[in-house]
């Protein structure tokens, strides 16, 4: 297993998926605006999709199932982005800010 044949191994793709997931979690924890957190959550979903596609290519009996699953993840991600961004726009209109620390109305 050398660097040039690394794309023929399942582990490579699982590592890429885990790395995308890790970057997403890091962004989700450190971001201070809603849009930044939304971007990080897209990274997480992308890592999950890479995992599904890797298992689909190497292990699954029927290679169509994983692709359909990834297609559904993409559709859900698009719906989530649309809803999330409209909420961001609505919040900006009433608070004049999308910083997570300015929205403390529910704090006791």
């Amino acid at each position, binding site marked *: 297993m050398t660097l040039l044949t*690394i794309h023929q191994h399942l582990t490579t*793709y699982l590592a890429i998926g885990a790395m995308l997931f890790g970057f997403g979690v890091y962004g989700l924890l*450190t971001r201070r605006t809603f849009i930044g957190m939304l971007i990080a959550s897209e990274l997480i979903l992308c890592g999950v999709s890479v995992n599904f596609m890797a298992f689909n290519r190497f292990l699954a009996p029927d290679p169509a199932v994983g692709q359909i699953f990834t297609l559904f993840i993409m*559709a*859900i991600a698009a719906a989530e982005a649309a809803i999330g961004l409209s909420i961001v726009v609505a919040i900006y209109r009433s608070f004049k800010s999308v910083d997570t620390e300015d929205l403390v109305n529910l704090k006791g």
Partner: protein
Amino acid sequence: MDVSQTIYQTPSILSADGLVGLVFLVMVAVTILGAYVASTAERVVRAVSGLVICFVGVAGIYYFLNSPFMSMMQILIYVGAVCVTISFAIMLAAPEEKKKTTPANILSGPLGFIVAALIFGCMTGLALKTEWQSYPKSGSGSVRDIGISLLTTNSMVFELISIILLIAIIGAVVIARDGRSS
């Protein structure tokens, strides 16, 4: 054709196999670079640009996973739709990260990095240690197979996803429109 021979011999960098491996490494580098920019850039506009780069890299990785269709879909849906929508939201809401006045959350410092690194390390370790078991293939995974499966086996989920998308779009319009007249 002997499969184990073709997999485990090291190709020359100028042969076709070597170039394929090189392109894969470039795609992985693009993905990691984009993900790094997307999760650490200080300005949100740069983070979105990083997200676009990362998604293009992932589309290339999908190509290596025998799925040019998903590669196209990745570019169409993520780069063409989701990232453009996020850019529009940035233009509407101008979410610049301001200077940190309040003490930072305990998770947003090195602890957040440790958590992310632990997740990455543990999952990669699991992937390396597990003996993955392969099953005999029963289909080719072509676009034709995907279409047939979407209209027969997975037709219920397909309908549900259509309804979810419709409701999400209507809901997005309703939420974003609220309070517009004031």
